[in-house]
């Protein structure tokens, strides 16, 4: 995870939303207090963000010829752009 991209509030929002909790709820506030003081949890959430980032960036270009084959299957090959 890139520290510039994700701040504590967005992480908290993620966690509390997953729990169905409001950011100001007692449970959410106690989680925040724990996170502020727990380096293991902090690094865990950084690695979760990194995981998401990896899959976001892992794209595949359409293979050569795929567009032509698609238009042919759809019988649209004669239609010009």
């Amino acid at each position: 995870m890139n520290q510039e991209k994700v701040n504590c509030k967005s992480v908290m929002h993620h966690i509390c939303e997953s729990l169905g909790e409001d950011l100001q709820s007692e449970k959410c506030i106690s989680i925040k207090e724990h996170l502020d003081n727990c380096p293991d949890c902090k690094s865990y959430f950084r690695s979760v963000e990194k995981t998401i980032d990896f899959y976001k960036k892992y794209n595949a270009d359409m293979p050569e010829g795929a567009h032509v084959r698609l238009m042919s299957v759809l019988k649209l090959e004669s239609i010009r752009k």
Partner: protein
Amino acid sequence: MQNFFCTDMPPNLKLIISNKNFIKFVETNNKLLHQMDEEKMIELAKAGNRKALSDLVRNYEKTVYNFAFKICRNQDKAENTMQETFLSMIKSLHQFDGNSKLSTWLYRIVANHCLMGYRKRKHKFVELDNDDAVVEDKYIADWDTLPFKSLENAELKKILDEAIKKLSPDYRIVFMLRDVEGLSTEETGKITELSVPAVKSRLHRARAFLRKEIDGALRK
């Protein structure tokens, strides 16, 4: 526009503010124009205009291929899914009522096609019906200290492929729609026909499972 400015504001700052507002104005207009164009294209395509249909396919082929690849993790299957998705789109376009975005409708077709394929093959995936499969006793996952490879690295791609292939498509689709494609929890729920709490639960388990798998592979 003049109302934004204080009388003693330096001219350069006024220019920056007016430029920013202008850019925002242009962006909003472009978005509206795109929506109007698409609505018009859909109406024309429904009426049998093949040029409009061809334009719709061109506009979405990369999005559909990429999403299919992210679910299937295989180029041939992704291409086949893309073709099946657009065949379904053409067949059912008259049923598209415009209440959702066309992209949401296409995501749903891709997801259904992939799920059907996996069900036919009766492939076994890791069970994530409870948290036991993803909960770790100790989080010592300080990835900042690991020598990270770039995504160009084939070894890292293999790790990502192997991790996601173990994940059941039901979970994989939720993770891809919500986290990777950036759809809202509600949109993800509509596409997958899951309740909002069910989307959140699957998302949490999918994220934790993938993180655990990648962590294990990187530490080998």
